[in-house]
């Protein structure tokens, strides 16, 4: 099928250096790469987006990315109703609905390795805004990386709360607690609330006085870093979105799952100046091993299973 217009709908404004911004920038890059026009519908909240989806379809978008897991049900319905190609987190239903699996458990594994090598307190913190599947996959990937590198390290896991995307004060409070429990690296996942986590990382130290590092996810906050951003598990959605457009044109849309991969760099660890060169080299080696299949990273999506990995980590420490 022909594609000349692609669109994305995001729940928040595309200025979060995270999920929404990466999605929008990815779509714009994909549009450039495939010579299509991009329509951005941002800040729609977590409510019913059927009207927007229909409107976009009517405005000529043939491929729409429903960029929030909560949009899946309605996106699939509108895809069938309007005959447009829709990308959601739900299982693919060719020819109109395709699944994209935006989990970066492998990148998170690398982040875990990095954190395990850099920590001096041997305590790491994971702070999440909520227990969404994406976050769970990464938390679990991070834990696996940590355990593979250094089994004695303790992992502290904390959730801010269910509606915590805007809860910067809560994020900061929770992160400060985790740091106070002696964590010196925080793996933080939480869109808007991650600014509260960064604030905590920038302003408090663990009891032993070490500098605290922050490992971010999805986006690149280097431009607003004040010297604590160790790395980020980058989600580069441009290759994925580009592939989707090409598949629609080739009428193979939805036949394969779209995922972030280490191979094409769509899933990668952000290299910052704070990572020592020798550690970076070791990370490159681990990355090669994962790609080669020598290391397998389990994909864990359920909250309970994710929490279980934290408690095993704790148990290993005792």
């Amino acid at each position: 099928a022909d594609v000349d217009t692609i669109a994305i709908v995001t729940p928040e404004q595309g200025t979060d250096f995270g999920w929404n911004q990466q999605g929008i920038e990815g779509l714009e890059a994909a549009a450039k790469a495939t010579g299509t026009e991009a329509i951005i519908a941002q800040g729609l909240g977590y409510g019913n987006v059927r009207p927007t989806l229909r409107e976009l379809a009517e405005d000529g978008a043939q491929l729409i990315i429903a960029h929030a897991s909560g949009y899946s049900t309605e996106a699939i319905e509108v895809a069938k109703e309007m005959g447009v190609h829709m990308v959601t987190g739900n299982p693919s239903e060719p020819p109109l609905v395709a699944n994209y699996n935006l989990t970066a458990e492998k990148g998170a594994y690398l982040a875990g390795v990095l954190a395990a090598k850099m920590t001096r307190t041997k305590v790491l913190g994971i702070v999440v805004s909520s227990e969404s599947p994406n976050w769970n996959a990464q938390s679990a990937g991070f834990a696996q990386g940590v355990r593979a590198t250094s089994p004695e390290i303790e992992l502290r896991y904390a959730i801010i709360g269910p509606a915590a995307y805007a809860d910067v004060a809560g994020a900061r409070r929770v992160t400060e607690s985790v740091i106070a429990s002696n964590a010196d690296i925080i793996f933080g996942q939480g869109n808007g609330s991650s600014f509260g986590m960064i604030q905590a990382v920038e302003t408090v130290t663990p009891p032993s006085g070490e500098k605290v590092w922050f490992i971010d996810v999805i986006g690149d906050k280097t431009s607003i870093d004040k010297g604590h951003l160790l790395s980020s598990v980058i989600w580069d959605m441009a290759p994925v979105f580009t592939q989707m457009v090409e598949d629609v044109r080739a009428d193979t849309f939805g036949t394969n799952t779209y995922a972030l991969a280490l191979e094409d760099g769509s899933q990668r660890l952000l290299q910052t100046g704070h990572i020592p060169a020798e550690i970076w080299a070791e990370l490159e080696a681990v990355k090669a091993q994962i790609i080669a299949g020598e290391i397998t990273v389990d994909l864990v999506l359920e909250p309970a299973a994710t929490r279980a990995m934290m408690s095993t980590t704790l148990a290993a420490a005792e």
Partner: protein
Amino acid sequence: MSPIFNEPFLAALLTGAIISALPLILAGLGEQMSERAGVMNIGLEGMMMAGALAGFAATLAGLGVWGGLLAGALVGAAVSVIMVLFCVRQGMNQIIVGIAITLGATGVTSLMHNAWYSRTYPRLDAAEKIALPGLSQIPVLGPGLFTHHPATWAGLLVALAFALIYRQTFLGLNLAAAGEKPDALDAAGIDVTRTRSLAVLIAGAMAGLGGAYMAVIGSGIFVPHMTGGAGYIAIVLAMLARDRPFWVVGGALLFGLCLSATTALQVGGIEVPTDFIQMLPFLAVMAVLVLFGRNARLPRALGQPYHRGQR
């Protein structure tokens, strides 16, 4: 006990509890004064949002933490002027004007954030803390309870000040009379409108201060909707505490401890759905209403406009 419950961790939990309680304390004390004087301020949430943005902007502009707090208080009071004009002077419906204020302030601050900060997410430096000598050395409790930005203590002092005002000054009597029997206050030669206006302005300033504390000291950043219902919780605290400022403080601290307990349980690996824990404070409020509701009597003239000589 799990080894993670070390002293610094407990201290951080206490710190967190106090920091999340303080905006509730400030706004709650303000609401308490306003209700004491007979004006129900449902616009508290909006005044907190406005104060948060103002405080953040002022601190970011280089006025410092204290400058930010002052700006928050001033803007909160400025927003409450709407309440004074519409409700105290003209006797319009307080609930409607309050909802309007909250909606408007939430919208305006969201737009301003989008225009000013959404591309750079400026963050403030940490507000420096002061360890109270001696007290902060108390094991386990000391560091968490007694190492804070001085504004935190100022916040607690306000409760003391309010308690003194209520108990020890004529102003306190006037406020109570304005909420209970405004005609008696008027007959005693005190201007009811002026007394109520003062209370509403102070409530606005306190809510703005609470919002500013949240943005400047609590999070160091401003994002839209960041007060997240704190204003409503403050209203409830004020209603339950009635005329006792220290009950507001206690209730808010309990609330903060609830939040910190959530973190403690999670970090300790105990599986309790966060949703249930989030529900606890509100359930507690309902339980208190059911058990002691008859005693939680509100001021007789709450919500009722006063016009001299009207039968």
